[in-house]
């Protein structure tokens, strides 16, 4: 396959966006299904090329493919910016994740979004998001990566606020945009600091400079921290995690694609992409590991008490992203990215399952569900598979990657290892709590305005879920015997075998902890050996603290936004703006307008005068040349 074709991976969804926005939406508004088909065809094409790209990189032993680049801006002797693609093992894996999950979500959306008046708009944004995400993954320099980084942020904003007539959705969109922007500021500062110290934006060159030690010391640490702060915003890590739970206001397939599998993982990808910068700074690595490890347990603890199924999944996502960061900070690219790879499939599946449940009951509140196991067998089965995978039960996908993170953290950060182990327990508990509340027991009537009996979703929604369920089982097998690690250039392909893994103490321990969590959830929410109400009474203050999410929303909104910013800083700025800035601008404007009137006086329309001016002009030039020149 000629390598130019790799450009299509990114261009196909972009074309799909253009076609839907400028052809289908204005002229074929009565045929909404066309928008969905266009998106699926484009992303399907991207997926096929991505598979070829993966094999090509494998054949190239994980090294980057030579892809011809485009001269974007070229000024001889001055600025020259090239648009190029970096397709190595990391990119190839990400391409598969993004195109495959996106494809499944688009198919699912055909059913979920059916009849929505914004159908074309939905698929246009989805196409644009997929294009931006693929551009972000493929970019070979930090400038374009940043452009697409902002692009996915914009699409996230547009899609969270897709139902913009709901104030909660509009507010959530705004919150997501502003909070991530805080992190982006650090990212941009990091990029600029890098450029001023190295003179390049090229990722491969930066790798080389970091590995040879050309950039090092304090500068490297600060650059790495700057880049990491971008990742903290995008991947909803503590303390910028507050936007992701609110982002659940968007359509559920959007949550599955953007806020579970791909965009939120972009932060993890960013750290992996610039990993040599981190690897050569102890401080940066430790920061990544600590933030990741703390976020993992912090978010999981909130997930224990949420009653909205999407919020459970949202906190679970934050927690798992923390896991990936922990993997990156203690182990390396291969370990963090392998968890990203597995997580994308089962977490997307969990969200699609939540959407399917919502499709049937009209609510996301688990207290109004229950008993859906019999009426929604496919949703139930796939949801359980994904949950087992997430909990880390052998031999499902989550087991393999979680185990590696635990092993690497035990090696370098034992304290974080214990936090991670507790998180394993919490994860298993809150997932099975959700399963028993949603699918077990008796049906509790759904949404107050619900219509009739719940029923299984149509095949167009179920089939993608089944495919993702298969992937949630098998995707972890890639690293049996260390194959994935070897592909990513990490280790020589040695790892525990499919069965022999259970003879090692650590995997066995984590498996036991996960099963303990499941059993406890069963005891409380299914068998009712322990009463949930009594437990809540026992841990009253703790429960309140978790249910209020450690009061972070209140802290940010009241203390930072209202008191410090609105009444302090912004009020001062406004004074400055009215008095100084406006005053200057108005003065300049008045002067210019007066000048314009004066010039107008000369333009009388009289030909003789015009001729005279030409004559005077020539004379003036000649005189000045002869006497000054």
């Amino acid at each position, binding site marked *: 396959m000629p390598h130019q074709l790799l450009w299509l991976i990114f261009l196909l969804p972009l074309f799909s966006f253009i076609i839907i926005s400028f052809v289908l939406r204005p002229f074929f508004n009565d045929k909404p299904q066309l928008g969905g088909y266009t998106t699926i065809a484009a992303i399907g094409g991207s997926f096929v090329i991505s598979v070829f790209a993966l094999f090509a990189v494998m054949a190239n032993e994980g090294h980057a493919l030579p892809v011809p680049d485009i001269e974007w801006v070229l*000024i*001889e002797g001055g600025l020259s910016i090239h648009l190029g693609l970096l397709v190595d093992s990391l990119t190839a894996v990400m391409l598969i994740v993004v195109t495959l999950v996106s494809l499944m979500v688009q198919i699912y959306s055909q059913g979920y979004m059916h009849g929505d008046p914004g159908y074309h708009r939905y698929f246009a944004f989805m196409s644009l998001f997929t294009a931006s995400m693929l551009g972000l993954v493929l970019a070979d320099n930090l400038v374009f990566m940043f452009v697409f980084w902002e692009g996915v942020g914009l699409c996230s904003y547009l899609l969270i606020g897709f139902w913009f007539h709901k104030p909660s959705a509009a507010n959530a969109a705004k919150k997501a945009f502003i909070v991530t922007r805080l992190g982006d500021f650090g990212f941009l500062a990091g990029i600029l600091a890098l450029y001023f110290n190295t003179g390049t934006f090229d990722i491969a060159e930066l790798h080389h400079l970091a590995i040879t030690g050309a950039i090092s010391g304090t500068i490297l640490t600060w650059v790495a921290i700057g880049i990491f702060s971008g990742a903290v915003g995008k991947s909803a890590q503590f303390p910028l995690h507050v936007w992701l739970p609110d982002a659940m206001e968007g359509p559920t397939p959007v949550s599955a694609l953007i806020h579970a599998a791909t965009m939120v993982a972009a932060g993890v990808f960013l750290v992996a992409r610039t990993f040599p910068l981190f690897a050569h700074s102890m401080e940066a690595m430790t920061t990544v590991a600590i933030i990741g490890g703390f976020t993992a347990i912090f978010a999981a603890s909130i997930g224990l008490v949420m009653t909205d199924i999407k919020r459970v999944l949202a906190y679970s996502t934050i927690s798992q992203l923390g896991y990936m960061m922990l993997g990156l900070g203690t182990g390396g690219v291969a370990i963090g990215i392998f968890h990203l790879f597995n997580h994308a499939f089962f977490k997307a599946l969990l969200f699609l399952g939540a959407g399917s449940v919502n499709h049937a009951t009209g609510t996301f509140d688990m207290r109004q569900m229950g008993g859906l196991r019999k009426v929604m067998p496919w949703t139930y089965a796939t949801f359980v598979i994904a949950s087992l995978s997430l909990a880390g039960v052998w031999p499902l996908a989550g087991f393999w990657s979680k185990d590696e993170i635990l092993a690497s953290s035990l090696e370098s950060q034992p304290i974080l290892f214990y936090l991670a182990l507790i998180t394993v327990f919490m994860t298993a508990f809150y997932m099975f709590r959700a399963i028993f509340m949603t699918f077990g027991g008796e049906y509790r009537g759904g949404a107050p305005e619900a219509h009739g009996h719940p029923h299984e979703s149509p095949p167009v929604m179920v089939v993608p879920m089944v495919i993702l369920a298969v992937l949630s089982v098998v995707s972890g097998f890639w690293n049996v015997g260390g194959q994935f690690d070897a592909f990513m250039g990490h280790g020589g392909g040695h790892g525990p075998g499919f069965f022999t893994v259970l003879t090692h103490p650590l995997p066995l321990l984590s498996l036991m902890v996960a099963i303990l969590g499941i059993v406890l959830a069963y005891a409380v929410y299914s068998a009712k050996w322990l009463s949930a109400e009594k437990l809540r009474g026992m841990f009253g203050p703790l429960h309140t603290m978790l249910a209020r999410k450690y009061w972070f929303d209140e802290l940010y909104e009241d203390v930072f936004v209202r008191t410090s910013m609105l009444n302090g800083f912004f009020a001062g700025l406004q004074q400055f703006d009215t008095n100084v800035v406006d005053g200057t601008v108005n003065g300049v404007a008045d002067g210019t*307008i007066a000048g314009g009137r004066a010039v107008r006086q000369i333009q009388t329309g009289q030909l003789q005068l015009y001729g005279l001016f030409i004559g005077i*002009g*020539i004379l003036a030039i000649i005189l000045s040349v002869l006497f000054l020149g």
Partner: protein
Amino acid sequence: MHLGLILPELTLLVFAIAVILVDLVTQKKEVLVWVSLFGIVISAGFTLGMWGWGSYAIFNNQMAVDSFAIFFKLLFLGIAALVILASVDYTAKFANFRGEYHALVLLAALGMMLMAATTSLISIYIAIELTSISLYILVGLLKDAKSTEASLKYLLLGAVASAVMLYGMALVFGFTGEVGLGEIARVVQGMSLATLLASPAFMVGIVLMIAGFGFKMAAIPFHMWVPDVYEGAPTPITAYLSVASKAAGFALVLRVFYSAFGFPDWLSLNWGIIFAVLSAIGMTVGNVAAIPQTNIKRMLGYSSVAQAGYLLVGVATVGLSAAADVVGRSSVLFFLASYALTNMGAFIAIIAISDKLKSDQISDYSGMGKRAPLLALGLTLCLISLIGMPPAAGFMAKFYIFSGAVQHGLLWLVIIAVINSVISAYYYLRVVKVMWLGEPASAEKVPSSGALKLALALSCFGVLLLGILPGIVMRLAEIAAKMFGF
């Protein structure tokens, strides 16, 4: 003979004659549009075919066929095609002269193509006259009071400019004894600096030639005709004047000053400074004078004076860097391509809107965002490009031309240019504001024909392409900037 190398020009001539002949025999005047467009396409095909063949001097060194000329020929043909598309409806205003109109548009294009290729003072003069005479007639074609007045003013001032230029050419010929640009350069380089300094006549000759070219470029102080003529002329011809005629002037200036007066450094520095000063005054006067305008065609007239000022920043860079660097010339070429698409787009939208409103007043554009959203969107994009904001072509063009100037010590001029860009935002954005935020005078939609929409879409596509992926055209401009003999 080198007839093969002037096939594009011959084709255009043949089709110009064919248009007149067809006009005699047919009642369906739409055919004339097709014949003209067909001629342009064939001519463009021949021109394109010559790209990359190398450079040739033909007709006893009167003309050059090089990448520089080809770049401009393609530009002129493209503009002529857009002008013809944009006037499909407009020509109803002079139904009896449709044949002449199309033939003259083609002949003017032919003249401009020659202007870009000529390499001797004599052929330069002939090419300018061929262009000018066609345009004088086209400006007066509406035959109403304003149009006639505009045509007469243009003719008389044009004659003055021609006379001044001829005088300058005569002085240069008298000093060097040559008319070919290459030969002039050889003679000048053979002289000592002392001889040059002791010969004011030569410098005066050069200044007088600047005056002649300055008239075409609408550079200050030879710009006085611009607002009056722009306002009175048929709008497609205003567009033609503001874009193609100006570009032809710049093509001439680049070739003449670079080929004939590019050495020694003392000389090029001198005219570089002249152009720098003209540029600074030109953009300031153009922008300031545009602010109080209420007629959109007049406003764009002053805007075109200001844009000529920006372009002269690039010409001044050529003077200050001489042969050292290609960036001055290539940035002017890129700016011209971007400006051509942008200004054509703006005028096409104005043709479509004003023709229906029967008014050129900016206040009548109120609420156009509701009455004609696509036209308003296209016009907005073009105005944004004229300000020089991304993602439109104008941003890249200004960035390119200014960064070249900064590299060659013209920081002061770039500062003036940037301040001017800010001032210009005021009057460009005022139109945008009126269109989108103003209340529509009536709820009635403003329809437009398919040809106009196509022309506008092509322009806007070009504006976006050059703004988002400028690398392709920058590369072409850099190749084209390497002229015959260098």
